[in-house]
């Protein structure tokens, strides 16, 4: 305990000194840093903060030091997050490198692959994207058809992916390909990494109902994927793929930051109550609309129970690693909570929630409309809610197929 107290003191002092003032304000969409050079934050402080944190390995606090990580224990990690939350410090680095491929390489990558890829994730040099879904392979991911032929020192990749988030900004892609078409569908898949600048790759952005275009169709036409970037064994990519999905669905980071005392979830709930106070008004210290009030409180209680559960899970997982099938709980319940939160905002704000552009709405209101629409993807992306429930029924509850 004493050691942890010291750690807290040191961390607090360091953060005070090193976190730029503008990095202590709520994140705005454009200033999120996900690595790479194709999409940059307009705020130079973003990079001051990134570099300082990266130098300590605190962009990925729990990763081993030898790959540039912070080497922190779970409880130190939680302290760091708590101290960051205390000063409302932004997360210095987001993106699929940190949340998905990094943790997966730690478990399945060769020593050489870890050395080559992880440090570039830690310092934000490289941004990654995920080449999983295909037009014919969504929930049934193992039905994928993009094929990769063995050409000695490389694979020749042909096919197409869809819904590739951030493909237009990514430097590298982790990609599922079929290397053995004759084998049963789960046994002919390999997990490969290659540069998005490779010849033969083209992308086409797709527009969402919110109006934004965060993702793309990605086409591969005779793309060379060098053998040294095959992760794990050939035709055994499915094992790697599933593990990555677990990281995606819970992300230890998301779990741990929820475990920190001031959680993202309660922060947004507070603001939901604040919104309602303002838009609905108060009577006798109660929100003036008793029915909406009940729904908001119900939501808030569920959100609290949810973050307690996240915290409990972090504390239970000693090694500080992503739990297994139970991650589906967080993916499923978290997505629903978020959708609910936004629906309640709409109810509280009434017709002011539906501004699309132009006059008559504040920037916050216009932003809310889009955020609400985007939130509907939470129960689809990363495996739909139905798929999460199937996983829970089968893997956690042991129900038969």
């Amino acid at each position, binding site marked *: 305990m004493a050691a942890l107290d010291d750690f807290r003191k040191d961390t607090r002092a360091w953060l005070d000194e090193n976190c730029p003032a503008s990095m202590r304000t709520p994140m705005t969409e454009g200033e999120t840093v996900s690595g790479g050079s194709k999409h940059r934050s307009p705020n130079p402080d973003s990079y001051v903060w990134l570099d300082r944190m990266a130098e300590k390995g605190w962009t990925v606090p729990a990763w081993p030091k030898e790959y540039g990580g912070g080497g922190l224990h779970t409880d130190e990690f939680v302290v760091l997050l708590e101290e960051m939350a205390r000063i409302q410090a932004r997360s210095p680095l987001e993106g699929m490198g940190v949340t998905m491929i990094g943790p997966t390489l730690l478990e399945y990558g060769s020593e050489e692959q870890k050395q080559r890829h992880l440090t570039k994730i830690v310092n934000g040099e490289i941004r990654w994207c995920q080449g999983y*879904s295909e037009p*014919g*392979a*969504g*929930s*049934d991911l193992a*039905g994928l058809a993009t094929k990769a032929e063995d050409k000695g020192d490389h694979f020749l990749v042909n096919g197409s992916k*869809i*819904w590739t988030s951030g493909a237009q900004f990514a430097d590298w892609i982790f990609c599922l390909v079929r290397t053995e078409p004759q084998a049963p569908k789960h046994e002919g898949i390999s997990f490969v990494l290659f540069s998005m600048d490779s010849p033969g790759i083209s992308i086409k952005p*797709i*527009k*969402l*109902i919110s*109006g934004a275009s965060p993702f793309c169709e990605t086409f591969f036409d005779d793309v060379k994927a060098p053998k040294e970037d095959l992760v794990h064994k050939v035709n055994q990519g499915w094992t790697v793929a599933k593990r990555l999905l677990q990281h995606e669905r819970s992300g230890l980071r998301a779990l741990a930051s929820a475990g920190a005392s001031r959680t993202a979830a309660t922060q947004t709930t507070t603001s939901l109550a604040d919104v309602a106070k303002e*838009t*609905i008004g108060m009577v006798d210290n109660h929100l003036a*609309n008793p*029915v*909406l009030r009940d729904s908001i409180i119900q939501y808030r209680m569920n959100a609290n129970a949810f973050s307690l559960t996240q915290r409990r899970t972090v504390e239970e997982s000693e090694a500080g690693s992503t739990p297994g099938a139970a991650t589906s709980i967080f993916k499923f319940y978290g997505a629903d909570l978020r959708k609910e939160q936004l629906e309640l905002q*709409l*109810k509280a*704000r*009434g*017709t*002011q*929630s*539906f*501004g*699309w*552009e*132009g*006059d*008559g*709405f504040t920037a916050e209101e216009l932003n809310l*409309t889009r955020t609400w*629409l985007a939130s*509907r*993807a939470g*129960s*689809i*992306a990363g495996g*739909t*809610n*139905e798929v999460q*429930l*199937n996983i829970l029924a089968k893997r956690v509850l042991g129900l038969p197929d």
Partner: protein
Amino acid sequence: MPLVLNEEQNMLKDAAKDFCGKSTPITELRKLRDDKDETGFSRDIWQQMVELGWAGITIPEDFGGLGFGYLGMGVVMEECGRTLTASPLMSTAVLGSSAILSGASDEQKAELLPALAGGELLTALALEETPHHSPYNISTTAEKSGDGYKLNGSKKFVLDGHVADQLVVVARSSGTAGDRDGLSLFLVAADSDGISTTRTIMADSRNAANIELSNVQAPATALLGAEGKGADVLDKVLDVGRIVLSAEMLGGLQEAFERTLEYLKVREQFGVPIGSFQALKHRAAEMFCEIELSKSVVLEALSALDEDSDEVPKLASLAKARLTDTYNLVSSEAIQMHGGIGMTDEHEIGFFMKRARVCEHSFGNAAYHRNRYGELEGY
């Protein structure tokens, strides 16, 4: 009351389906949106609707209308709802004409109704002042001034307020915000001095505006109904609006449901159509039940309007509450069951959810109407 359509109504419905399918498919709404069209609907299509008689469906034949009643209007709106057709039908042929039918003097009727039925006049109801439906919560004032009145206040979410020729303004001539007594309705030209209009661009790509009234002069002849008794007219108009909007919503949600059902049959994953998964099947079956109940309440409420029944207020609340919940449910499930493609702008299914939520907040959401229903039942 009949819960089935008669032959005439069925023919009207078929004609409307045909028209909307050919002339105003969802691609039209998308085009209006992407072109940032100033009007927000097609004047040309509106003219065709007028020629079909739709502007005067509820207006008696004596005044140049079709005299088909609200069941007639309902079936047309249901079809418009399926294709998310943007038109001034709601603002003009529903709200405007019912305000005039129930509030205007004989002279006003003789002058205005034929113009409405002929599509020469567009109207808008300038009611709301907050983002939440609250019809008596009116602060806009109507002060006596000379022979007439001076109107001051600001109005929100006025459907078609940006194109209307005449505004039905709900103002307070006495009492304080929240009182039912003391409201008065005025019909004023939209280009009167002191009126300024800001169009609001909404997520459902339909049309509304915020309107500021600053010392707007309205003659005594502009009054619809008696001074201070505007709520008698307003309540009627709103119930008409709620019920006909419910009919539109019924169309939209059935279309979203049918499209989703079709998708469940054709989209394959794991080597089978996704509609074979019980997790989706049961939800589809549950939605089917909610939709069947929705159809019944809309029909009953429309017939109650035609029969001018005492049940209208209760049925209006029943319809609006139920259709709100059902449209929200079905349009959200539609996206979820479409998976990734449901989230794209290119696919049309997302349009229904945007429309559903804007409808939710038009003329009172579900909780508003449950409260009102309880009040009408005396508890």
